[in-house]
């Protein structure tokens, strides 16, 4: 019993101090909120049942221990008929009670499921397509106007208070999209499109992670959902639609040349330059991202340098080519990429 209460305490602590860490019991949106409410309902009810069942089990320990010595055999190895009848009643009662409780749980569960799935059906929704790749996320903001379609990676910006439809696709193996503070999982399955509605109540950065084993770097396939007030989101979006600014200093100009003359261009796209590869994340506004290598590392010049020089040590098995960059070329390349705000 003590263990249970310790666990409870731990749960309470984690629910209060979780902040922006990914957590099921720290909801930041209506979907996650409903599920968290259902969770606590299940939790308390089942804890109560567990305690009752354990109490009965522990009670049997109070019966006298007969020891290993064999006593003379009795004729009947069962209690009196009266006792059996009594037991039968109790067990039947407990079973009926179990059925009733499970029925209640079923009703609540299905009800919550229905409510959650209907939450997104408003008409001011935003549609974002998330495509899974080994081991990063491509994020595409859908729009019927092609000039308003934005391609980004490993970060999703959403406006607070607006439902967002996430369309999920995969280019290689099965991944799973999961931002626990906002909603449960949805798998990304090759040859299929799955969908999920999410919505954030309050501004913040919510961490998500691939939840279906997808190979060597399953552990480092991280995604941030950045919820901002509508106006701030709009401003960000308009800025993100712009092509990359031309490098303004000699050193970043040199960096651009390094980028364009290396294998980088076969996989990465920087709008506004000739780099148009589609195999890796779009780097048009790389400098404004929070992390590199699908948020394996925070986006700092030092980390970026390490990542370019030796990606296989940072994230072994990932698909970024290890290229030979001269020591005098490295700093300009870093500066250039970091300047892509």
């Amino acid at each position, binding site marked *: 019993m003590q263990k249970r209460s310790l666990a409870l305490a731990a749960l309470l602590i984690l629910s209060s101090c979780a902040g922006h860490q990914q957590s099921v019991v720290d909801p930041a949106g209506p979907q996650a909120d409903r599920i968290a409410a259902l969770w606590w309902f299940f939790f308390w009810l089942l804890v109560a049942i567990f305690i009752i069942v354990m109490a009965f089990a522990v009670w049997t320990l109070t019966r006298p221990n007969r020891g290993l010595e064999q006593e003379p055999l009795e004729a009947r190895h069962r209690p009196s008929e009266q006792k059996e009848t009594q037991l039968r009643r109790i067990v039947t009662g407990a079973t009926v009670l179990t059925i009733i409780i499970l029925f209640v749980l079923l009703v609540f569960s299905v009800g919550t*499921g229905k409510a959650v799935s209907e939450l997104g059906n408003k008409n001011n929704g935003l549609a974002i397509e998330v495509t899974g790749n080994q081991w990063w996320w491509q994020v595409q903001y859908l729009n019927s106007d092609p000039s308003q379609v934005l391609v980004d990676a490993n970060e999703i910006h959403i406006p607070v208070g607006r439902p967002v439809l996430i369309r999920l696709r995969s280019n290689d193996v099965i991944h799973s999209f999961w931002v626990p503070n906002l909603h449960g999982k949805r798998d990304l399955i090759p040859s299929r499109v799955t969908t999920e509605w999410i919505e954030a109540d309050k501004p913040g950065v919510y961490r998500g992670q691939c939840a279906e084993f997808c190979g060597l770097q399953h552990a480092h396939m991280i995604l941030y959902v950045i919820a901002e007030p509508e106006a701030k989101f709009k401003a960000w979006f308009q800025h993100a639609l712009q092509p990359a600014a031309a490098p303004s200093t000699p050193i970043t100009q040199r960096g651009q040349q390094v980028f364009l003359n290396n294998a980088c261009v076969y996989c990465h796209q920087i709008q506004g330059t000739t780099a148009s590869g589609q195999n890796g994340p779009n780097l048009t506004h790389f400098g404004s991202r929070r992390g590199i290598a699908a948020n394996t590392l925070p986006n700092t010049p030092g980390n970026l340098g390490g990542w370019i020089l030796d990606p296989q040590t940072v994230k072994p098995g990932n698909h970024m080519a290890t290229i030979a960059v001269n020591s005098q070329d490295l700093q300009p390349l870093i500066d250039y990429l970091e300047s892509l705000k």
Partner: protein
Amino acid sequence: MKPAQDVLPNVPTCEQDIADLERVWRHPRGIGGWLSYTTHQAIGMRYIVTAFVFLLAGGIEALLMRTQLALPNNTFLGPDRYNEIFTTHGTTMMFLFAVPMMEGFGIYLVPLMLGTRNVAFPRLNAFGYWMYLAGALFLYWGVFTNAAPDMGWFAYTPLSGPQFTPGKRADYWAQMITFTEVSAMCVAAELIATIFKQRAPRMSLNRIPLYVWAMLIQSFMVLFAMPAVMIASSFILSDRTVATHFVNPAEGGDPLLYQHVFWFFGHPEVYIIFIPALGFVSAIVSAHTRREVFGYTAMVLSQIANGFIAFGLWVHHMFATGLPQIGEAYFTASSLMIAITSGVQIFCWIATLWTGRPRFTTALHFVYGFIAIFVLGGMTGVMLASVPLDLQVHDTFFVVAHFHYVLIGGAVFPLMGAFYHWFPKMTGRLMDEFIGKLNFWVLFIGFNLTFFPMHILGLKGMPRRIYTYPPEAGWGPLNHLATIGAFILAIGGAIFLANVFWSRKYGRIAGNNPWDADSLEWAAASPPANYNFEYLPAATSRSPLWVPPEDRTFVTGLRNDRREVLVTTLMDAEPHHRYVLPPPSIWPFLTAVAVTIGFAGSVFNAWYVTWGSILTGICLIGWFWPRRPLELEP
């Protein structure tokens, strides 16, 4: 061998009969002879020992994983090695430890509990063991040549397909499945036939011990579940080796289909593992409370219901793939129903403990441990049945915690109890009770310390199967705690092993029935003779050894100069005819070698299917070729 005078005092002692039985049932000598054993005790013990070795292997893999996860950004194992190890751990525990261990106990105990001399098809039994051993060695051959599977034990496509798992790693895995499933299906077919046709006279259906019922249900589940996994693993294998398109979406195949087929097996698999364990619990509870298990009929019916429902809820492993809502409600409801049938059994055991005359032996300690852990695992199972909750905690450490609670709590704890309970039957000596209780407490504490924190980790968003995590995720302390728990668990395992080795040599001599238990295996000598009983007992009640000795009945008139057993009718177990079991034979072993050549070779070259089939055909003809005497004299 001393006849079992103390349990069957009215058995006539006829030295000639015993000498005949000893001669007819003697094991053949030499290495060739050792490979030809067909007695169920020998085969069952081989299963148990082999499965235990793989439990140790899986345990070492678990410790390696826990060591890697003890600290954030740990580099003890790289991603490649970690993926290999967690896949091998899951595969080993499911296919090479849990199922074969349960089958080993079944092969050992069922004929004894039914009061017969051997299983119905002793050679098939031997063949099944060799197939299991070959499959296990095949997988571990891969492990030691750096070709351990690395795509998770359920090998979702396309990750396990030809492009994303290069080399032979997934092929080793898929073919190992074929080996072990052939073995499991052999065991299932022969156990059902044994239970249906070789019960002690008058052991009608409502007198079958609960453990035998559990094995019967488990065997039927094997018959219907294992073909699914053979299909699933064949999808992978043929896609990888001969370029079929069963799961290739580009050519009309479907990766979700693989999941459906796999989980149609995968969910019943769990019940295949723990239903026999529930049988252990029933046997232990009744022997150690010295009272029949309360609610025999309810227990049997709920186990049968468990078996049926198990096939109707596989989709709850796939909620995150996005299914129609009506399907979700149905599968939630069916998943919750398991809680009813399991609940009934828990209530019945508690009722039995409550009104029995308990002896708090180590075996009973493990039953209490089982109840605590299994009920908690059941609670989290109820949570996972709910679609919205499952969407949140699916594929996280919460699920890892859940299935270790139900599988270790539901299967390994009863298994430990079963070792303490039947060790005296198998070796003739009791295991040490003091070390046993120590063993229990270390395991119980270690287990909860390892797996309880994982619930919280899951809620904090830690996905399963990640080889490392950043410090800022905040998962460090609980992971550290879990790792400490894992090592305590390992110490518990070591204590158990020490107790086994010590008790085998120095344990107290047990006698035939040290627990004063009720089922027929305790009427045989400890350890049992190759023929189990000098005179086959009849079952005059549901607890045949609790009727007064002078009322017990036994069978005479079976010929002792050949391996003869009694076949009884299906429902009432009335004697129907006698049946002569074949003598030991090397052919099952040779056939297993031939099949192994076919299976193992086909991973590299599909033509081996042909060569293997031809060799197997030759071996089977040898197996079934008639030998003298052709006519059986009455």
